[in-house]
């Protein structure tokens, strides 16, 4: 799958436009991504390794419900990670 990260998390992956990850599901892909980018893990996943509720995931421009992050993906699927809001 191809990850595209939008919003304030972009700096945690060095502002790379796309990140290719080999994994069978979205959730597994997130975990692989976080192994490569440990700073991203602190922000993206909670203590139990689950996606934090403040972030949304879309596959091929379709937003997923949080319960759908274990869905299977193909190698050319585009998975977007979106942070809707930041505060300060």
């Amino acid at each position, binding site marked *: 799958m191809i990850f595209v990260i939008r919003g304030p998390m*972009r700096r945690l992956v060095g502002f790379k436009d796309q990140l290719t990850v080999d994994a069978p599901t979205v959730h597994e892909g997130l975990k692989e991504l976080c192994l490569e980018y440990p700073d991203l893990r602190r922000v993206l996943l909670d203590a139990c390794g689950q996606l934090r509720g403040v972030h949304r995931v879309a596959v091929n421009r379709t937003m997923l419900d949080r319960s759908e992050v274990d869905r299977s993906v193909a190698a050319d699927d585009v998975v977007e990670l979106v942070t809707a*809001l930041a*505060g300060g």
Partner: protein
Amino acid sequence: MARSVTFELPVDTSMFTPVQLHARSVFTIVMSGWARWLREHWVPFPRLVRDHGLGVVIAGLDLEYLRPFTFFDADTLTATVTLRVAARGKLLVLTGVVAPDGDAAVAGVEAVLRPVRISDGVVLAATPTDLGTDVLARFAEDEVVPVAPPRLEPTVDELEAAHPLVASSSQTFTLHRHLCEAADQWSGIAVPDLTTEVREQVVSVSAADGDALSAALLRPMQRIAIEFRRPAFFLDEITVECRAFRGAQGPVFLHRLSSALDGDALATVLEWFTPWDDEARDGSSHHFEQGAPR
């Protein structure tokens, strides 16, 4: 009486155009007032975010220029900023009044803030939240207002229905860091920087009614109102579509800001320019009376 902070700052040329204070300068003053209010009456802003996990996003800004004022008119400005809770803890409302020392106010601002719960201390990702009872208990009865400030859309609808369109233009910007704040999210107070550029482009190229629109280059802005719907982030592309109308008293500019990626609406901005007769100006105001909030 609602608690406020008052502070003074010397003027410098970067705060002004030849005819008035930059909108961004006034907004900056008021947001500094927010930080000062927090420090004096609650907890310093960095600690509110870091230790209490509470922040805000700007939901709306409304600035009225109350009378003519330029760089040479005073040495110092005094700002008074007051904070209230609105809509049962869903919103905070900052009211700021800016005046030269010992003289009548020159600008008034109402800033509407939406409280958010911060989920991490790295990118400050957040979700909207209502202020809890423990926070609400910090505010006195006269610091709580029952209703939310009015939305901008009815004013936009009225403008589009009642006044002729003179010219329009759009421009796409990349959001670079000078337009963002600490979370790499766009800074609400920087939005006038974008709308100014597109507005001046519309005025400069307009051949249909250049004289009416040229007031927007020659005369001060009277009021700017911004309503935010969704934030944008560092390196996002934003389209600003500007439509210029011949208002009852002068040109009015409507800007719709949207994501260039998916077209989602980000913000709406209205700017009123009035061909002032300075001596005949009656001092009437949308939000303020004799320099104080209504």
